[in-house]
């Protein structure tokens, strides 16, 4: 970013602070951090609802994430993060809650409220913080067998202890919604199909058609955020990379960026460019895998094989240039661990170019396979309105007409220097999502070619290993959408709080909307067209 851009951005941001202080004078304290592009607003619980409603409905801001931190004085610090477009600063609404006030007003009743729904349920489960006015709290991340009243994210809870789990109640039945005569609930999961992640879906049906789907997740909750606490940065990086192996580089990058922001570390330009290459290589592979999944769900055998060959070729390419098929270990705080020689750059550019051509040929053949299109068109609909109110992110939101992309909104690594157009479709059905996956995969290949052709010289890692105490939010566009990493570093260099808001967490929340009133056999197709990961969601 040039000095001029910073200055013009700061001027626009200063207006925001005036706006805040004028509109909400005496009730909030607004401060602006022009360098970070954050407008920090301290508010009182009584004003929270009005503030959130104003931000979302009149100012057009979208809810990004809610971060709960347990501090000493006062007892709780809640940060509601909102974002809008590339020109506006992000808004961090900070709410201090005393220990004796056990409840916080819930914002789920607002128009954009559904996007905060799961955040509040998670905070209630893990911290024991109650949200007043929330319609359904309890048994969310922690299932029924978890002991009542034990909140693992509290500071007093020891992450290494093993608790005595409760015996499952044999009379327990899952809650259902549909009450028509002859209706029944068909359970799917947590162990189902050939290769599906552990998750559970209750399909409420009257026979052929499924009326409603009740998903149940967090079978894979590994307490990543809790076990990260108290560990040094190097240790937590391993967790950040490994909690979701299919987006390892993106989440490693999110974590490293937060650490770099806190410590004031500048990343060399060559490292930034290489980060872009690796992140796009990961996106390309992720999208190829999703396309494989969609072809497989419609039982189109040759197309599945073709897409699977592309996926395997990309895994091999990743291993060849960065030592690991899933890019583990490629990212480090302050840079990357692998450099690309000139020959390797040529090899990568050639390989992704060839893969883009193969994807294009596959896409053209799929477009003329009517039996395939019939299975995808008008299946798993997500309307633009719903995508906005649920705050959906990534390819799924972009297939429903929401053109938000963090690579454009807040360019990181070398994204401010690359040229690409955000892929957007309007229909919001399975076919629109497939088209977005194809377009983005092609773009990733083009971005990789652009960057490796003009790789800046220099170091791939800074020598600056200083660590400062502080907190920062970093945002990256992971393969399935916006990922937010909140890191608090302590004086001794260990992690005080690590909160990950992965795109799968945001988007799984909207899955039940797409899985309504459909024919039974469409379920695997809807599931595949979302292309989400439970490991990423559950953490």
């Amino acid at each position, binding site marked *: 970013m040039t000095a001029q851009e910073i200055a013009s951005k700061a001027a626009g941001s200063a207006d925001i602070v005036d706006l805040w202080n004028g509109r909400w004078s005496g009730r909030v304290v607004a401060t602006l951090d022009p360098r970070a592009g954050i407008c920090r607003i301290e508010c009182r619980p009584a004003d929270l609802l009005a503030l959130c409603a104003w931000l979302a409905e009149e100012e057009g801001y979208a809810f990004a994430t809610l971060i709960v931190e347990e501090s000493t004085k006062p007892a709780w610090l809640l940060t509601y993060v909102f974002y809008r477009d590339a020109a506006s600063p992000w808004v961090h609404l900070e709410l201090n809650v005393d220990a004796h006030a056990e409840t916080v007003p819930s914002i789920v009743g607002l128009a954009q409220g559904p996007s905060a729904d799961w955040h509040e349920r998670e905070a209630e489960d893990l911290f024991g913080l109650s949200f007043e006015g929330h319609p359904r709290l309890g048994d969310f991340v922690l299932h029924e067998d978890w002991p009542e009243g034990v909140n693992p994210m509290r500071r007093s809870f020891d992450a290494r202890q*093993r608790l005595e789990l409760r015996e499952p109640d044999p009379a327990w039945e899952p809650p259902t919604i549909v009450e028509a005569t002859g209706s029944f609930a068909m359970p799917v999961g947590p162990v189902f199909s050939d290769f599906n992640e552990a998750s559970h879906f209750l399909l409420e049906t009257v026979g052929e058609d499924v009326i409603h789907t009740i998903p149940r997740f967090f079978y894979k909750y*590994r307490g990543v955020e809790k076990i990260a606490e108290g560990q040094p940065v190097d240790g937590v990086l391993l967790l950040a990379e490994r909690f979701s192996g299919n987006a390892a580089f993106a989440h490693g990058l999110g974590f490293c960026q937060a650490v770099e922001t806190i410590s004031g570390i500048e990343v060399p330009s060559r490292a930034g460019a290489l980060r872009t290459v690796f992140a796009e290589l990961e996106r390309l592979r992720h999208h190829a895998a999703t396309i494989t999944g969609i072809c497989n769900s419609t039982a189109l055998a040759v197309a599945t094989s073709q897409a699977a060959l592309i996926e395997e070729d990309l895994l091999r390419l990743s291993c060849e240039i960065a030592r690991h098929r899933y890019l583990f270990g490629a990212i480090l705080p302050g840079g990357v661990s692998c450099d690309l020689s000139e020959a390797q750059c040529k090899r990568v550019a050639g390989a992704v170019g060839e893969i883009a051509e193969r994807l294009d040929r596959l896409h053209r053949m799929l477009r003329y396979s009517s039996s395939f299109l019939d299975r995808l068109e008008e299946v798993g609909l997500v309307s633009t309105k719903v995508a906005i109110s649920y705050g959906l992110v990534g390819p799924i939101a972009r297939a429903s007409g929401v053109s938000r992309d963090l690579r454009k909104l807040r360019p990181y690594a070398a994204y401010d220097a690359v040229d690409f157009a955000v892929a957007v479709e309007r229909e919001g059905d399975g076919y629109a999502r497939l088209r977005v996956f194809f377009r983005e995969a092609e773009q990733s290949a083009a971005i990789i070619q652009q960057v490796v052709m003009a790789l800046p010289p220099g170091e791939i890692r800074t020598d600056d290993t200083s660590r400062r105490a502080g907190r920062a939010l970093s945002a990256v566009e992971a393969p399935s959408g916006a990922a937010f990493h909140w890191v608090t570093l302590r004086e001794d260099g260990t992690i005080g709080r690590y909160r990950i808001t992965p795109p799968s967490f945001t988007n799984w929340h909207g899955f039940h909307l797409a899985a309504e009133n459909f024919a039974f056999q469409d379920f695997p197709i809807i599931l595949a067209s979302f292309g989400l990961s439970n490991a990423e969601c559950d953490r």
Partner: protein
Amino acid sequence: MANWVLKGLRTGIKTTVYPSGVDNALGVSPGRPRGAYLRSEEEADALVARCPTAAIARHDGGVAIDNRDCIHCFRCQADAEEPGVPWEDSYEWAAYPDEMTAARNQLHRAFGRSLHIRFIDAGACGACMSEARQLNNPYYNMHRLGFFITPTPRNADILLVAGPVSDAMRLPLRKAYEAMPTPKRVVAIGACAISGGVFGPSFAAASGVADVISVDLVIPGCPPPPLAILHGLLVVVQRKRPSGLVSPPTNGEASPP
């Protein structure tokens, strides 16, 4: 539809030469560290300290690698200042978890040549699962070797489990195991399923599959590449010999800085 048939035929045969030959294609495996003798005691101690999962231990004057704990973080690799351990390009990694199991499996042949496999995700990050899924792609095509994925444990000979076993997956895992007919075998794939990896043991996850059900074969790696999983399945039907769990120091030189 004829177009698809033509497309398939034009692509030709892509299948790996493994197990009858050695697959040397670039990127089929990330390889793994090997035990080594170092130039000094201090260098060996420094290497032990660099490993975040204690997979490297002092052994007989050098360092040995316990493959069960290795998570492929590459931190034991040589860099500008410090020497590292040598790296081997291999993928035949499947091993028996202990001598008792090894003896039992070698004495008693449980299966013929074909296997039906039920995959269970017990809290895996997705990479192990992705690698297992690749076994169906044309490069590895495990059907040619008589291996099939089955959607139900009731038809399964083998339970292929990935992940450290999160609390919510303990019961489903045990139930799936109990639903399988005998003879049955459990194969743990990946560092998490073997030792808990970077996640377990903790308040939310166990320290691997062996905490819940008995394990007959382990396939180390983070994640093990498809060929390593294929090797494991071939070990179960006794068509391949297993590898060792620990890589002791060898006379090959440590890689210089």
